[in-house]
């Protein structure tokens, strides 16, 4: 179970660029739940995932995962519990190293790196087996450098790497946004299969209303560093793309209202 209690994060505090990216966010995610996160640009979705992954420490609040209090754990320590796929296909893999070497790095996620041999026969066999399930024609290319692959292939491999050892939590931050539509569909289908098969607790950020409506067990909408909407269970199942678009429009209109109100206040008082 993932639990965030009153988590706040402000960037550039005390400067004119001060940005309250997370404002006392509370979030509890039960084991095995697939949560989709949507929200306007800059609403704090990536910041939320980064806070959980430990890319930075939060200003206040606490985070626990799988009964461990991880608020003060550094990123590499949290990686023992967390698998991650980034938006940028270049971020998740080491381009100059072979597919096999990248997978081997993932096969030791959270374990000490010693002077032993990573590319042993059984592991290589398992690699061929698991890579063939990707259906991306990578079966005979384990020795090729990852840099020679397409974005879609790299994201599929990153997904495989993130879940090679079953993570307590899978974090996906717009992991199909940089891909062409066909590869994006492929990677999404793969995501759904893997998450369902291993019953992974998952947070997935997306900008695709289609994905948001059709995937996951729970849907969270963020705005200005807060969770403003939370659809679960049957309610989530009922949601259609149109509902989401309408909800977004509502938020946008409220935003405009906010801004015109602020403008009016400024005119009156300054």
């Amino acid at each position, binding site marked *: 179970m993932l639990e965030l209690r009153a988590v706040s994060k402000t960037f550039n505090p005390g400067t004119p660029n001060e940005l309250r990216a997370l404002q006392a966010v509370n979030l509890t995610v039960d084991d095995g739940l697939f949560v989709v996160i949507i929200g306007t640009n800059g609403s704090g979705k990536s910041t939320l995932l980064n806070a959980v*992954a430990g890319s930075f420490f939060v200003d206040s609040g606490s985070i626990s995962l799988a009964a461990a209090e991880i608020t003060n754990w*550094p*990123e*590499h*320590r949290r*990686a*023992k519990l*967390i698998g*991650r796929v*980034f938006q940028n296909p*270049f*971020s*998740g*893999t*080491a*381009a*100059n*190293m072979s597919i096999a*070497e*990248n997978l*081997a*790095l*993932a096969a*030791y*996620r*959270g*374990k000490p*790196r*010693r*002077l*032993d*041999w*990573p*590319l042993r026969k059984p592991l290589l066999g398992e690699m061929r087996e698991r890579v063939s399930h990707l259906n991306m024609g990578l079966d005979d290319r384990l020795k090729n450098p990852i840099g020679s692959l397409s974005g879609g292939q790299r994201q599929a491999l990153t997904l495989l*790497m*993130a879940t090679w050892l079953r993570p307590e939590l899978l974090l996906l931050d717009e992991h199909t946004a940089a891909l062409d539509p066909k590869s994006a569909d492929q990677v999404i289908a793969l995501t759904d299969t893997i998450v369902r098969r291993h019953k992974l607790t998952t947070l997935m950020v997306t900008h695709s209303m289609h994905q948001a409506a059709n995937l996951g067990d729970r849907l969270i909408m963020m705005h200005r560093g807060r969770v403003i909407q939370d659809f679960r269970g049957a309610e989530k199942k009922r949601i259609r793309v149109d509902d989401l678009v309408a909800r977004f429009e509502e938020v946008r209109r409220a935003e405009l209202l906010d801004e015109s109100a602020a403008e009016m206040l400024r005119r009156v008082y300054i």
Partner: protein
Amino acid sequence: MSLLLGALTLGFIFSLLALGVFISFRIFAFPDITADGSSALGAALAAMLLVHHVNPVLATFAGFAGGFLAGTLTGMLATKFKINGLLAGILVMTGLYSVNLHIMGRSNISVLGSSTLSTYLDRVGTALTRHNTLNVMGWEITSLEASLLIASFLFIVLAGCLMYVFFQTNLGTAMRATGDNHEMVRALGINNENMIILGLGLSNGLIALAGAFIAQYQGFADVQMGIGMVVWGLASVIIGEALVGTKQIGLSITGAVMGSVLFRLLVAMALRLGLNPNDLKLVTALFVFAALVTPELLNRFKTLKPRSFHA
């Protein structure tokens, strides 16, 4: 002939420098110039211990250990204290200058009277050949020269193989990945800061080892001897890359050794042809500069060409 042998031997010894620079600059993409200080540190430590009759193997190893510590220090400044990598290297290098002076007690010490790896090899060589000189294809060479060459060659082959094997292990793979993509490495549970610290330790250990060997080869250690080491090492690495490419770690290691030897041969030739030794560092720096900018310039030239047509 002994000029050639000397250049080859120096080339093999300096391969350790090239390998060290390869680790920091190429594997970690870390512009570490601690090398200028750590090479002299290795020489100073070994020389001081040799003068005090310490076993040469131990003294040489102490040189390696000293360099290793210096490298980890640079790594810690750069990671734990978030100091710019170049500056971290400069700080440690500058500090080492005083440290080296303290170790030696003055600006240089001679090891000519002490027993060193060179005197060991001399004895072994003489015992094996039963002569002080050898005749190789009509050339007269001393058994010392021959045994130094063979020993340095064997050592560098061993060091290169060890390094290759190391970078295939889990730890070595994690290190290579750290230089490639530190974001991914952290996400896979690797402490990238520790990898950098350890890697720079290894790099400077090798460089200090080169210093320790050089001190015994030339018979003295000098506090100034480290100046320009980084550039020499880079020159070797660049030559190696031109020879064998950068595709595989094994090739890169071989390339660095080949580059180092070729570089030493070029230097010996240039000096023989009358290059002023004082100009050596300037020429090397210009060479590295040219090697770094040429590909870029060629690219720009290619892309500029069609446009200048219209102008």
